[in-house]
């Protein structure tokens, strides 16, 4: 479906807040003023150049391997994260494109959004995510170390208690006391088992 064009169509195209390009067999055949101003170039400098010449080597390879097949297979791509090279630096962008549906035509219409701030935000988020993961790892490790150390410290007095219980049982004691010592021994052994378990889990 084609809508009527607004009267200031040329302004809309040239002053659009995003870069607009049309590629024919990968070569730039139309470009708007916004995109030229980002590149600080004249129209003649980039007409009939390959679009991928504006990308760094990683982007060029990515375009050939992923973007172009996607446009061919499904007619469009959206929000591809690429970096556009200018003469003295580069800027990050989101690249969206639609292929022409007319038979025999190999046109691709592209919109390029400069995303410097968004990219900084993304980088910041990624950095924070990595930092949070790192901190979590450190915390778990610290907790494990404390549990491991404390468990070892607790086992020494326990070993003493178990030894003393064995010793008391060899003495001449009344039946009542003997039953109590048995209970004490069972509880102490249970405690020892629990602490061994902590050592096993944290020492892994």
């Amino acid at each position, binding site marked *: 479906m084609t809508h009527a064009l607004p009267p200031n169509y040329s302004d809309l195209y040239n002053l659009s807040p995003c870069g607009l390009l049309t590629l024919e*067999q*990968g070569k730039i055949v139309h470009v708007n003023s916004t995109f030229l101003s980002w590149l600080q170039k004249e129209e003649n400098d980039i007409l009939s150049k390959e679009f*991928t010449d504006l990308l*760094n*080597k*990683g*982007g*060029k*390879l*990515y375009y*050939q*391997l*992923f973007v*172009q*097949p*996607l446009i*061919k*297979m*499904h*007619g*469009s791509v*959206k*929000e*591809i*994260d*690429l*970096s556009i090279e200018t003469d003295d630096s580069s800027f990050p962008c989101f690249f969206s494109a639609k292929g022409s549906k007319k038979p025999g035509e*190999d046109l691709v219409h592209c919109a390029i959004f400069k995303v410097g701030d968004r990219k900084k935000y*993304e980088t910041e988020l990624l950095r924070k995510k990595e930092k949070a993961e790192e901190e979590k790892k450190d915390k778990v490790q610290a907790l494990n170390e404390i549990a491991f150390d404390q468990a070892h410290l607790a086992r020494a007095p326990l070993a003493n208690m178990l030894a003393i219980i064995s010793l008391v049982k060899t003495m001449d004691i009344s039946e009542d006391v003997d039953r109590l010592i048995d209970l004490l021994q069972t509880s102490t052994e249970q405690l020892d088992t629990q602490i061994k378990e902590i050592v096993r889990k944290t020492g892994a």
Partner: protein
Amino acid sequence: MVDIIKRNNVRIHGDGNKCMVMAHGFGCDQNVWRHLIKAFETEYKVVVFDYVGAGQSDLDAYDPKKYSSLDGYAEDVHEVIQTLALKDVIFIGHSVSCMIGLRAAIKYPQHFQHIIMVAPSPSYINTDDYIGGMNREDIEALFEVMDANYLGWSASMAPLIMGNPDAPELGEELAANFCATDPEIARQFARVTFFSDNRSDLQNLPVKSLTLQCSDDILAPLEVGFYIEKHTPQNTLAILNATGHCPHLSAPEETIAVIKSYLNTN
């Protein structure tokens, strides 16, 4: 018993007596063959599949150890051929699949009749006496762009069901997920692909082969096509007018014509 058909999402088109197996390249799946399937399905039985980790394959079957070299993938190609009891296979591979097919044909020559290589490269990295087209830094740069574009990927994308590839009304969601794969798997496949060196295997290819070399492909420059022709016995080199790395998508008519003409004379 592993269900090979399910694992590799094997699909068969046409029922000719002669048989073709088409193997997609890195980053895509069997849907890239739609033009070639149409061209060959009346005369051939055309078998297509997805490598484990790609398309609609069984992601649970992904084994990082098995797929740490191209041989893991070559074994899968052989298993597909064996499961379907295919004979005299004409293998058509794109990109990294050319070397996977080559390795399968060297190990199991009895199954193969021709290896047809679309945009192949035995080694991607330049050395003192070899032009592969890329340096190690270029490949690391590619990995960075891949990582940047995996931000939005989530595991819930994987099990979408691919409908009829000929249907024009493929949903936007599906389109966005075409070629989407688990980032960890994609990273490993990328490393296996781009850091593999199969130059010394070329001389061992026991069957006839065709190289389809694009005229301007940064992933496989012209020199690579000449290198393959020189070092592979019984290899025919065809240089296409098509540019880029995917002539089966960007110039299907030319690609099909070259393959047909080769098969008619060999």
